[in-house]
């Protein structure tokens, strides 16, 4: 467990951090996502509200990183900065060394409020097609992408339904399918599996791991559920107290491929869980 939350010059620091890492994870020599001393203040003057003060961590290519932290600490805010939806107040977030200033083309975001991020007036398929229009794809490719993405989330049968006709879990899968059809290199998901039942949750978690495997995507997931974070992640970034700061980055060393029943009953799993849990339980 190395705490990787301290680099000042990310690219240089990067290598040394990598050198300390013995594990054989899919990785690249340049960091994919790089968050350095990021700060974010909403408003200004009297009603200014500093949500993030100084946040530093990196995500390697092909890695799954989970972010856990108490409600309202600023997880969604962080993701919005990464997605270029909110400008950082200071510090920087970069993709492949390029500072993020607007929505980066190689990234897709699955929002926390999945039911508010789907267009209720479009069918499932049209929701998937909407962001692809301006890519000027051929009709065949469009069709292939949609069908592939829907099949991946197991919703091939629902392509002509409206989002509001689906259950919460299905809507969530549509949002994920939309991201998949967009073929991003980096997928960011904000509490994607909250309030779906255990079974669906397991399926979606496994889907997430499968996507990473099949497309070699870099995935960043915010979650409340510590078990989920440990199960999914290569590393878990634990955020604490307001303004948000990194308490610790926990390396998860669980064997691949992971499996809901066997992985979760490993003693190593319990140990990692307890570590994250005690970080969170401890008064910040």
């Amino acid at each position, binding site marked *: 467990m190395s705490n990787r939350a301290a680099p000042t010059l990310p690219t240089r620091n990067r290598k040394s951090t990598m050198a300390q890492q013995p594990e054989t994870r899919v990785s690249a020599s340049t960091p994919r996502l790089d968050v350095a001393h990021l700060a974010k203040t909403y408003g200004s003057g009297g009603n200014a509200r500093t949500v993030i003060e100084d946040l530093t961590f990196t995500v390697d290519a092909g890695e799954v990183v989970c972010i856990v932290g108490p409600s309202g600490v600023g997880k969604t805010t962080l993701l*919005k900065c990464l*997605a*270029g*939806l909110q400008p950082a107040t200071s510090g920087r977030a970069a993709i492949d060394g390029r500072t993020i200033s*607007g*929505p980066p*083309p190689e*990234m*897709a*975001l699955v*929002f926390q*409020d999945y039911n*508010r*991020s789907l*267009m*209720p*007036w*479009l069918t499932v398929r049209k929701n998937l097609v*909407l*962001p692809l*229009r*301006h890519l000027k794809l051929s009709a065949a490719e469009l069709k292939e992408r949609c069908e592939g993405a829907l099949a991946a989330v197991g919703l091939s049968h629902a392509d002509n339904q*409206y989002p*509001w*006709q689906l259950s919460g879990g299905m809507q969530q899968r549509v949002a994920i399918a*939309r991201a998949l059809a*967009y073929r991003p290199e980096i997928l960011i998901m904000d509490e994607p599996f909250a309030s779906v039942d255990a079974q669906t949750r397991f399926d979606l978690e496994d889907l997430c791991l499968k996507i990473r495997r099949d497309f070699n995507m870099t995935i960043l997931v915010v979650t409340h559920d510590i078990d989920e974070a440990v199960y999914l992640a290569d590393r878990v970034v634990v955020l604490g107290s307001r303004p948000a700061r990194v308490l610790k980055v926990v390396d998860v060393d669980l064997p691949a491929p992971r499996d809901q029943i066997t992985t979760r009953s490993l003693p190593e799993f319990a140990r990692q869980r307890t570590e994250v849990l005690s970080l969170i339980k401890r008064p910040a």
Partner: protein
Amino acid sequence: MRNITMRNWVIGVAAPVLLLVAWWFLSADSTDPFFPPLQTILVRFQELWLFEHFQSDVLLSLGNLFFGFVIAAGAGIVLGFITALVAPVRWMLDLLIHFLRGIPPVALVPIFISLIGFGTQMRVTSIALAALFPTMIATVDGIRSVSNDLMDVSRVYRLTRKERVLKVLLPAATPQIFSGLQVSLQVAFIVMIASEMLGSSQGIGAMTLLAQQSFMTADMWAGILLLGVIGFLVNILFSLLRRKVLSWYIGSRRLARAS
């Protein structure tokens, strides 16, 4: 379950029928000059509107209503978009619009008469101008209340400006635009009648007022009945259109309620 639905249907149909029957019989021997027998009213209705004045008055009124409303709807939506999306325009027009909206549209009719005259143009202009504001204001409100999440989605997936306006803002605002259109339709109908009552001697409104002023109460009742039926039918047509365009919205609302 089935029984209850059946019973509701029976009640729903029987109640208005009973009401009409009661009117028919209670008014049958009426000598009250203002409440003539329903039979007389219906006879006059048929005589007046179905043949004699259908083309000259009924079609004329409906034509004015239609053109006025269509102009108002189109202009209202376009102006609403411009106002909502261009902040300086919005700031500039905000107070003016709310002021103009505060004026009873019927009070503008005398002004239009003095400015434009009393012909068909005046009536269509009056209807269009008066009916413009509800749609325009609803459009502005609708666009401004489109959820930030949807706009964030559009940005993350890098939709073009045109796509954002036509594919996201417009559909997202349609529920509110339609509420605005509904109000506009009501206003258009009212101004149609008022412009006829104040301006000319043609149209259903004019005929009805004339009947009142010459104490031909059966004719007046026939006019009221016709206007009521038109108001009702126009509203139904509009509802059908709304149901078609907003099926997604109505469906999602129904589901949300049911849960």
